[in-house]
């Protein structure tokens, strides 16, 4: 009887171990910290570092966009929080926005971040209630970033210097 328990238990244990190995190779964590983060995501217990998020938000409000992004990336190392990814995209928008031209590279990275944000909040449209922002949904931000990447005749309109940053 005990031998049968060992057989069944051993089979179950080693199959679980094999699943862990497949998961490790699929997620390719680079450090032990990333292993634990990936495990938290898989278990549904992943949470961002709220303290770092708030610190990044205060940097964002002081227009320190790069520093804010660094903090947000540390707050959400796995890039799994829609809220944080929205703010990262917004920081790319604000830093890349100019009266005469938009920084294409920053806008491209902004589109990537906002797409991540939309993908992570696919169950319900993401809305951010922040009075400091003039765009509150990921969809609005995405359209603004994509328009900034498009070239048209309106780009040569001298009146565009009068437009305002959102």
């Amino acid at each position, binding site marked *: 009887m*005990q*031998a*049968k328990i*060992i*057989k*069944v*238990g*051993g*089979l179950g*244990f*080693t*199959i679980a*171990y*094999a699943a862990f*190995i497949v998961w*490790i*190779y699929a997620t*390719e*964590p*680079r*450090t032990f910290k990333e292993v634990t983060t990936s495990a938290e995501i898989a278990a549904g217990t992943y949470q961002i570092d709220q303290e770092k998020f708030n610190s990044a938000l205060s940097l964002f409000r002081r227009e320190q966009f790069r520093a804010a992004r660094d903090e947000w990336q540390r707050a959400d190392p796995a890039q799994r929080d829609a809220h944080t990814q929205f703010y990262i995209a917004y920081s790319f928008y604000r830093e890349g926005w100019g009266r005469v031209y938009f920084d294409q590279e920053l806008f491209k990275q902004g589109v990537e971040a906002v797409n991540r944000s939309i993908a992570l909040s696919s169950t319900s449209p993401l809305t951010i209630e922040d009075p400091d922002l003039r765009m509150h949904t990921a969809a609005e931000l995405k359209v603004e970033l994509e328009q900034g990447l498009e070239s048209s005749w309106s780009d040569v309109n001298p009146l565009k210097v009068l437009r305002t940053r959102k």
Partner: protein
Amino acid sequence: MSQANRSRNRALVDFVVLPFLFLTVALLGGLRVGAESRTFIFIAPPLVTLLLAALSMLLFVRGGLLRFHEWVGNDLPPVTNVAHIWMFITIFFASAQAFNSVLPERGLFHWLFSFFFLWTLWNNQFSSFDARRLLRSLTILFGTAFVLKHILLANLYSPEGGWLKRVAGALLQGVTLGTLDGPAFAPSTGYIAFFTLALYIAGLILFAFASNGEPTVVTHTLVDGYRQLSAAEQLSVREAILDDPVDQD
């Protein structure tokens, strides 16, 4: 009581220890540590390692290390059959990852090593092997590949420029070394590979002992085979056994 202990220990080795050992080899065989970033790099087994693992499995069967007919059969309980098939799967992937750990990741050396592994394993298919000789041969094969990759080639790929790189640079002055280029890994990669290969060989040795744990079954199989021969063939077998000197090594 001792019979019960023996049965429990045997079950522990067959269904827990061996699959765990082989799966650990499968986990560590593709693990490298970056030279500069010091982060983990997981390299999935290339297709050629699966081919090498398949040839190794054939060799295990031919060398008598894997006896399918004893480990999987109609007369065994279904759970035992499933557990044994599972163990064969773990051996297959452990073999693939053991090759992965000693195979250079890219460049000319990757193909050279792959070719020599294929050549050796293919030639071995036609050689006369028993389990002990097979294990010795595999130990030498992996040991040589380990020394070549993790000592000689690691020196060649070293970002600081090891002694081999300087010698190769002097010898091949003016000739491009682009085809010999490969990724540089931290020295800990070599330690991981050594541990992986040691675990793989230890697993195979343990498996060989586990396979030979039931001499009566082997004896019965041999005797049954012998009884199916004709009288003349039985006589030849008896003469051959009596004439053959006992292998002393």
